[in-house]
């Protein structure tokens, strides 16, 4: 199959909207409380995803900022374990829509190697900014690895960064001990996360030390939790300290956030459509077509699963269905003018189903997989969630 990056419609789409509040306090004593809102939209194809995001932070003073960005993930040809991640963003500092406080753009790229239970990555990022009349340059290199076991995951990232943004670094108590073109630091971040059925929690700890002419050190710890109230809604809390992000231009600060998140995954073409959490949407569960017209479906009616049958046969024919769901007592379908139909409540689990027309041999209705019945014939298998 030739390598195709994008083809036809995306197979999955997702939208995430998050709104909340944050409270940040810097070492200098300045603090800010702000409302924030972010939105992310993504589309996935077989070997690529594209996403766009926007983040708005609005504070009472001049601490407002708006950030817009886009990212892409690409699977390498013939190497599903290798994924290239890229991201670019632009940040405007100042009241919404203006860059009175400065502007910044940044980009990064990471190459991931991902396997079932572990992965590794390495990447680089670069940033340019104009803030308070100063031209800021920054870049970073990182490498890390992660592993998961069941619901538990751990990760470690090592990063080396440089910047000439003295405002950002001095606010975090970093200084140059001698004339130099930039600050150089290195970080080590460890994170542990646990995903539960309804609760996710994570903890991260980072250490930063100086290199070369740079003087200073710091460490930061963060705790976070998310409560998935419904399949689409969740509440997230974070508290802790974040190190100054040299690439994004975020200051070192103690941060507390609370946010409400809404996530929607919509359907596309022939794509994977996993229902959110435990919710199965009505009329979305159906026996797949095997090329012939489907005769057996699984549908939902008032949250109760039903086996729906639609058999093409002459109007006067006697069409019957039997199976484990009705103790193999043949039940006649009714003719609705076009097909012989029936709706039969079924309980959870696997069921065997057979149909016959006018007393002929029992057969498997189209749309169900065939299994031997130990009686020399076959019956269809229907699995009800």
């Amino acid at each position, binding site marked *: 199959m030739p390598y195709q990056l994008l083809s036809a419609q995306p197979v999955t789409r997702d939208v995430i909207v998050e709104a909340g509040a944050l409270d940040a306090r810097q070492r200098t004593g300045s603090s800010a409380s702000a409302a924030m809102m972010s939105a992310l939209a993504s589309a996935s194809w077989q070997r690529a995803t594209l996403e766009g995001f926007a983040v708005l932070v609005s504070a009472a003073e001049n601490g407002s900022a708006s950030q817009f960005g886009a990212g892409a993930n690409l699977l390498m040809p013939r190497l599903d374990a290798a994924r290239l991640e890229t991201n670019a963003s632009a940040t405007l500092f100042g009241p919404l829509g203006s860059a009175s406080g400065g502007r910044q753009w940044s980009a990064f790229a990471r190459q991931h190697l991902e396997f079932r239970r572990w*992965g590794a990555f390495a*990447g680089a990022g670069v940033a340019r900014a104009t803030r308070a009349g100063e031209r800021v340059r920054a870049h970073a290199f990182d490498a890390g690895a*992660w592993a*998961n076991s069941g619901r538990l995951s751990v990760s470690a990232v090592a990063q080396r960064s440089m910047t000439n943004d003295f405002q950002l670094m001095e606010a975090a108590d970093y200084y140059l001990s001698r004339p130099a073109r930039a600050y150089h630091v290195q970080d080590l971040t460890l994170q542990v996360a646990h995903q*539960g059925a309804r609760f996710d929690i994570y903890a991260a700890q980072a250490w930063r030390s100086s290199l070369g002419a740079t003087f200073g050190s710091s460490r930061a710890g963060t705790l976070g939790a998310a409560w998935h109230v419904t399949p689409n809604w969740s509440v997230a809390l974070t508290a802790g300290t974040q190190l100054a992000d040299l690439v994004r231009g975020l200051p070192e600060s103690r941060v507390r956030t609370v946010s409400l998140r809404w996530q929607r995954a919509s359907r596309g073409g022939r794509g994977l459509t996993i229902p959110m959490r*435990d919710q199965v949407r009505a009329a979305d569960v159906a026996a797949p077509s095997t090329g012939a017209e489907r005769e057996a479906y699984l549908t939902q009616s008032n949250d109760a699963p039903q086996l729906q049958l639609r058999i093409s046969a002459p109007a006067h024919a006697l069409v019957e269905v039997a199976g484990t769901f009705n103790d193999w007592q043949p039940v006649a379908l009714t003719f609705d003018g076009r097909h012989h139909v029936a709706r039969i409540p079924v309980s959870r*689990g696997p069921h065997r189903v057979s149909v016959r027309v006018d007393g002929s041999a029992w057969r498997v209705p189209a749309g169900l997989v065939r*299994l031997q019945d130990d*009686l020399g014939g076959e019956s269809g298998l229907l699995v009800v969630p």
Partner: protein
Amino acid sequence: MIARSIIRRVHAARRTISVSLALACTLATTVRAQTRAASAGFDGITDARARATLQAAVRNADESGVPLEPLYSKIREGVAKQSDPDRIADAVRQLSVRLTIAKEALANSRSSDEIAAGAGALQAGVPTSALRQLRRVWPVQSLTVPLGVVTELVAYGVPAAQATVRVRELMQGGASNAQLVELSTHVQRDVASGGAASTALDRRARGAMSILAVQPRSALTPPGPARFRPQ
């Protein structure tokens, strides 16, 4: 003399009562057995020899502690399909063996549906070790649906080992029964479109895992080891 006569009469009466009670118990047992047999479909087995064979098989299964309803269901299926009585008896014997194996593999489950689903999986070619693996992942939660999904995947042509591994991974990842069933639905769609079953399962399972593994993240958080895979 009179006393002996009275005693003889009392003993005779006791014997009569005992016999009557025994007859009554036998009758009651027979009636219950006949009721169960009728509901089990035995009435549809006109061949006396085959009926006796079936009843023996059911008794053996009962003594082994396996649920009887799946056996009765198989008998009713055989009657509905007008199968040869000997064939029905064979089918019941084979099913009884699978039910016994499934019960043991599922850690002596007491759920009739779960054991029946396990027996169905064994019939489709799923190895006993697969049932044990799934039991370890969900030691308490019912495996009725996951076993059905594995059976379905194997019936589509997915190797049993691969089907078991993928379903197990999704179960460990927190997939719901509905998500497992939908995975199987999409695999069949891919197969119907001409794709290889094992390839389809791998692709769909990775997609399911990526959605299960998506971490809520704000664009402001530093990029971490994301596990979002395109599908």
